């Protein structure tokens, strides 16, 4: 794994999300509790709704366009046969790190 620092935990609102652009597409980084962070594809499999703009509740997010709900831990849509890609991410010393190798990307040294 190669961990890439993408920003400070404080920059992602509690129960909110921020967008990260990568070569593998746009990724939403969600913060569900004080120090609990998830990363997943930003695009809703229904009609491409931007998931970073959804309401975050528990460890789920609701798509802002037509209310599909996704479990951030597995990426599975609740009650729909669909899934979003999830990416390894962790918090260390107040910074958010994402696994660059999962994005097909090396950290820019």
């Amino acid at each position, binding site marked *: 794994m190669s961990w890439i620092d993408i920003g400070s935990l404080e920059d992602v*609102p509690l129960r909110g999300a921020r*967008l*990260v652009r*990568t070569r593998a597409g746009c990724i939403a980084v969600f913060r569900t*509790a*004080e120090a609990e962070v998830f990363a997943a594809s930003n695009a809703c499999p229904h009609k491409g709704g931007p998931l970073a703009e*959804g309401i975050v509740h528990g460890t789920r997010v609701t798509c802002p366009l037509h209310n599909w709900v996704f479990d951030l831990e597995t990426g599975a849509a609740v009650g729909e046969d669909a899934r979003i890609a999830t990416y390894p991410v962790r918090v260390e010393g107040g910074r958010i790190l994402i696994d660059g190798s999962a994005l097909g*990307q090396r950290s820019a040294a």
Partner: protein
Amino acid sequence: MSKQKLVVIGAGMASGRVLEHLIEAAPEAYEITLFNAEPRGNYNRIMLSPVLSGEKSYAEIVTHDDAWYAERGVTCRFGEHVVAIDRATKTVTGQQGTVAYDKLLIATGSAPFIIPVPGRDLPGVITYRDLDDTNAMVAAADRGGAAVVIGGGLLGLEAAAGLALRGMEVTVVHLMGHLMERQLDEAAGYLLKKDLETKGITVLTRASTKAILGEDRAEAVLLEDGTTLPADLVVMAVGIRPETRLATDAGLSVARGVEVNAQMQSVSDPDIYAVGECVEFDGHLFGLVAPLYDQAKVVADSLLGRENAFVVRDVATKLKVTGCDLFSAGDFADAPGREDIVYRDPARGIYKRLVIEGDRLVGAVMYGDTADGNWFFGLIKDGTDIEEMRETLIFGPACQGGASADPLSAVAALPPEAEICGCNGVCKGTIVEAITGGAGDLGAVRATTKASASCGTCTGLVEQLLQVTLGDAFRMPTAQPVCGCTDHTHDDVRRLIKTMPLKSQEAVWQELGWKTRNGCHVCRPAINFYLLADWPLEYRDDPQSRFINERKHANIQKDGTFSVVPRMWGGITTPDELRAIADAADKYKVPTVKVTGGQRIDLLGVKGEDLPAIWADLNRARLVSGHAYSKGLRTVKTCVGTDHCRFGTQDSTGLGIKLEQVLWGSWTPHKVKLAVSGCPRNCAEATCKDVGIVCVDSGYQVGVAGAAGMDVKETERLADVPTEQEAIDLTVAFIQLYRENAKYLDRPYKWVAKVGLDWVKARVVDDPEERARLIAAFEVSQGIYRKDPWAEHAATKARGYAPLADLTLEAAE
């Protein structure tokens, strides 16, 4: 054979255990020298809190006294700092001289972290680590006054509780959103805060310390938001870091702590061991004694050449913040495939949450009743398959084995003395008696026994009792709950928020027994609105509980772009405004510019990250948000009125502008649209609006509860009034009544259909006092919300609109 020399640096809880094991197993193996910077030997550091609160004396917490060391021939050098380790000569140098070692044990513990704010070195600022700190706090408390504790973790809260018990006025300042965020989730943190507040401790969360103020000693703490808290004593308890300076200077491998292998041996020197909080093993640091005791055994064995290896185990935190019962164990944070079970008993202040992964329990957080904590901890540690008990797991070991999961038979099986309503102390027998005595529905049970009449969370149980007792004669009511997170209806929630009273989302979730951690996309926006409508001064709007349009103050489009609609007061604009709109459309390459059905201009297809910039540009031409996205005031449509029209009877445009200026920015249960027409020809279509005013020769006809969306409905006449001011007053009072009472997402016409126009008239028209109260309450709220969110976001929140990071750029570098 001559004895080997063992030198130990630090007489703390970890090294104390090492000495016990070592000497017991092989009393003659080592000649031991024990250094300690504190002028005393080992004592039970955990028990400093009872010493601070006055429940225990120092003598009672000493674990090894002078006689103990003397009997075992340990050379004690207490009150002496070790200043250097020389690995080449295998010696250790203390302030009073040098001593040689064959084996060295570093057990220096941790040092409190000091946040680098101005004033941190002033007298009167202390940390909380050892007996001297404790004594200093006791001395300060004897002088009385105010104490500010920086840090709402375990240590800070222990200090706060102790100081409060000693009569100081205590404020806890915590950076995060809830207390003890590493051990508790926000629901448990809410209960803890509430308990501390009943003990007279003030708790400020999301509060960041900027400086400690004072001339020759600490006098006050200044927060980032400008608040100044007077303080005779400042306790800094923001965290600890491993004390590794000696090891670093000696060239040992140190990451965050002294790096050791499973034998607790320094990875860079086999003759040097380390134990306790100063250690880092396999990426882990340690802050509780349980793992240190495991380490101590391993160190003793390793020193005696016996095989043993340290393994990291899950630890439970059963904590007693003087008088509060809390427990957490395992891992209640991130990993794939997890599921929560939440139980709340609002009347008794209990909260429990279990985190399940597949068929295993992986984490637990409990507050108020931690009796089952160890049982849950056992299930976590042993990885027990909990599939069979899943339904009843949260009720603990007492409910396992044979107990029925069917709620009705569970209620039937309860003994008559079982308490059903915690608020009013009503037991099952009393309720059954009332039912057999003729109370045939919930209302009757409430009236005769008071059960379920207060917080209402036992409503479900009472209904089940009705069903069990009356059988088919009882029909379960079908009131719709807000959503799957609760059994309460919107009406119940609104009523309870006002009467209990509840002033935060955490309070609603806990006190009304929410079944989820923090609601869902259905209930969160509703609760957020109810709280801000009822407590405009106490409650702060939570953007994270709003649908994206209201969070970003623009309408999201199907492709993820946004539309921007500036306000045009009463439909009036100017060439300058139009020019600014045209310039913005050019500059931000807006694909579509459309005139809306609401008498203004829509810029469609603006990129999310451009929003703050386009708003700032529009603001410069004095254009503000049109709230085309909000459950709030939208437009006030007007016709040209007396200014130009040959039929106009009053200044309809002017009244429309005035109304829009009074009402703009306010949040309402659903959107609100108004119109003012200058005569009954009604060119502004006022008779199908939420509030529509038609001007006539004799004054103003104020109509309400019209609709022209999914339903079409003509307004009903609220009143005819002679003056413009009265028309404005009635409108404001009507909207405030709607704000205070309607269900979230009911337009006014739906709400009026429920409560009846007469009920509305009785308050808004016929009762001048109530009308005045409604207008005043609206103004209080508008004191906060009548402002342009675009200007605010462009100035202070613009960063949140841009991506957090752009790795496509980095990769190209």
